């Protein structure tokens, strides 16, 4: 089947990129002037035997290319190495942290796309009206705010001054997490019908996801707006009008469907930005996800973890782009995958 071949081909193309990523992160992690083995061994005067043992385990004394070889070899066997800060396999750590981040970023992305498109269309239709200016101003301000600052302000406002929303974390005190299916609490609790958890998790998602979606929202708004502006002048929109369609149909059926195509692309690219933002958002909202994991790792030069994280991020990115391409072919019949 054509589509499957296409996907397979795309995934094959993934490999060189990922190798590149590992090469990059590996270089970063092995040029640093820090005594990793000693740190791993527990600090200042950790007994020399331990340090030696760890150096040996981590092949720290061997030439870099060899070390890289070992790393790749482990990688192929699904082993990302040992996470110093948590004293457990990186893969385990990622398994724990990934769902939280996924839940947050996906929701944020959905919000950004949804609101972004609507406002984008509105400000395109009402170009240069005050609505247009206000929405754009708000959106652009959003993208101009340091995300951590925004987070702090929201926290102060809605968790402290007017405590209507929870401060941090994924679930309320004493709320039992739903049985693990995907690790996305909202999803799992829905499936398992654990409604207390569902309520709590949604409730806890609000502030972080708003914070995170803000930046992407503006970008999506912008692209939707400009592509709408372009499309409403096109011939086929004139045709649609000539048919006697009502303006709403013209805009939301004929124009929007076309405008979505560039929007989706941008959304895909924006996923990277979102992952970056997650690092900061999670730190402030104490969200137990990859972002906090990465920050801790970076601050302790826990490079196996950093490499693991970047690798995952890269995979997520590429997959996101793949999904975009697939959506593309759905939205635009002119795009044919696999040829």
């Amino acid at each position: 089947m054509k589509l499957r071949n296409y996907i397979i081909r795309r995934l094959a193309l993934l490999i060189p990129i990922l190798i590149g990523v590992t090469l990059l992160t590996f270089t970063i992690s092995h040029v640093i002037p820090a005594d990793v083995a000693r740190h791993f061994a527990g600090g200042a005067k950790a007994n020399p035997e331990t340090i030696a043992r760890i150096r040996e385990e981590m092949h720290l004394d061997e030439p870099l290319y060899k070390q890289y070889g070992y790393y790749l070899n482990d990688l192929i066997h699904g082993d990302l190495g040992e996470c110093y800060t948590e004293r457990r396999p990186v893969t385990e750590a990622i398994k724990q942290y990934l769902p939280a981040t996924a839940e947050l970023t996906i929701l944020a992305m959905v919000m950004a796309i949804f609101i972004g498109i609507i406002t984008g269309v509105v400000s395109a239709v009402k170009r240069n009206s005050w609505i247009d200016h206000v929405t754009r101003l708000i959106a652009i301000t959003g993208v101009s705010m340091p995300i951590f600052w925004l987070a702090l302000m929201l926290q102060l406002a809605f968790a402290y001054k007017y405590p209507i929303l929870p401060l941090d974390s994924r679930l309320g005190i004493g709320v039992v997490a739903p049985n693990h299916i995907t690790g996305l609490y909202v999803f799992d609790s829905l499936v398992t019908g654990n409604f207390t958890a569902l309520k709590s998790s949604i409730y806890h998602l609000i502030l972080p996801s708003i914070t995170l979606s803000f930046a992407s929202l503006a970008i999506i708004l912008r692209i939707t707006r400009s592509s709408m502006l372009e499309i409403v002048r096109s011939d086929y929109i004139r045709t649609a009008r000539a048919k006697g369609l009502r303006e709403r149909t013209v805009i939301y059926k004929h124009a929007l469907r076309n405008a979505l195509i560039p929007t989706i692309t941008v959304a895909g690219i924006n996923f990277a930005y979102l992952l970056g933002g997650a690092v900061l958002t999670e730190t402030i909202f104490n969200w137990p996800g990859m972002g906090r994991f990465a920050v801790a790792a970076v601050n302790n030069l826990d490079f196996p973890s950093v490499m693991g994280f970047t690798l995952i991020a890269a995979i997520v990115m590429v997959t996101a782009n793949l999904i975009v391409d697939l959506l593309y072919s759905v939205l635009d019949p002119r795009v044919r995958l696999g040829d």
Partner: protein
Amino acid sequence: MNKKDIGKTLALLVMATMVFAIFSGCIGEEKEETPAPTTAAPTTEKPAGPTEVKNPDTMVRYTIGDAKNLDPADAYDTASSEVLFQVYENLVTVKGSDAVTIEPGLATDWSVSEDGLVWTFHLRKGVKFSNGSDFTADDVVYSFDRVLTMNSPESGCAWILSQFLSVGDTVKVDDYTVELHLEKSFGITLPCLVYTVGAIVDSDYVEAHGGVQADTENEFMKANPMGTGPYMLESWTRKTEIKLVKNPNYWGGWEGKHVSNVIIKIVEEPSTRILALKNGDADFADIPTANIVDVKDAPGVRMELGPSVNVTMLHIQTKSENTFMADPAVRKAMCYCFDYDATIKDIYNGYAIPLPGPIPKGFPCYESQYEYRYSLDLDKAAEILDAAGFTVNDDGYRFDGKPIAIYYNAGNEERAKMSMMLQNNLALIGVISQVMADSWPSLLGRMFGTTDWDVMYCGWAPDYIDPDNYIFSFNASADVGGDIYNTSWANARVDELLIDAKFESDLAKRCEMYREAWEIIIDDPSHIWACQPQHVHFEREWVHGYEYNPCILWSYYNYYKE
């Protein structure tokens, strides 16, 4: 054994100490306290805040750092011990705010032979592990031997036992009697058994899960503690939360006021911890010094102040690439450039006391160093430097504008402030300095791998309540196993004094020796003794039963809410 061996053993011993002390101390992310003979005095009382108690059957603590390792044979940090002290129990323990008087734990009573070589413990009957199996003498023997065989490959905490015990020294007399056969009388045997490393594990349980291998960690035990303590580990989500639930088999029983759940949330962001404490989500919360004012007077929040035996100091590389650092005059001048009062008043907001030398207040022989100490005196500093020939050049700089490199671990605001302040003062006498923050591992690499640093920081917490634990580690030379912080400072006379002091039983005499050593240390400083921070504790007013015990920081079994 001869001096050399002693030196070796001590070296090892102290090394192991450092693993913990530096790891937690210098990261500054964890307040570390282990046994210290101090008591907490409740202070400020305020009108009660919101009366309706949040989650009445659960104790919630917002803390900074996650536990590292939940295997008592290898755990050596506060966060881990907080959990282990709830899950496991030791033969003996300390109670309330008294960290010195040894109380019965799993042993109901004990005795020691006159020569101090044989300790006999009579064990509590009818005690069950949380998995239902019975606690007997075998478990004690197994636990101690296990620690010694495993030899804590990760943390090195085994030294606490190995300094007086070796495999086979623990002997079962009958199911409820155990004897420790020591080679050499050891004064602080009982205190050493109080720390988590002395916890009693269930032999069958461990055997069922990996058993004991020499010098290797037990991956299962690292994550799945199971003991006779009042609580069981329900779940441990890294960097997120640790959930404890009551152990139904607990011999102490559950009549009276207790909570059946304990949640320890790991929250790096201080503002989050503050808000949580204020709105009552948290019953306890770690509050940085800078934020004490934020919660001090908050309704419904209670603050407790108490002395601690932690010290903060700066250590100086005497063999730095800045060759002038080798000159005592320069280091002396630096001591005069440090603003001790401002450190206490403005950086620690008054929650610290002056530190005259390596021995903190609350330790024996503290007074022997108390009369005089350095204070901020820039003129004197300038004088000293001029006298030593380090005069100001045409640009107005000493050392021809070569900067003194001050490093601290990123994220530790107190240390950032002290550095900036020192930099300011040095500048005033024409000495330029650069303040650099770096991650802890990088600092380690720099501290031990290179000499291109001049000043770094470290915190310290005791492993045993004796001046030796401090002064020897800081000021004895590397050759005899001191100089933990690699200042490359060495003084034969000081080494001699400190080693003698170790084995001198007459306290008065020891203080004499320490005094003499201190004179030398102060006159040719390798450290700037910054201050001795205080212990500050915050809790909701609906929490009752908390008492600060520097030895066992948390015993949730005694706390309740109403």
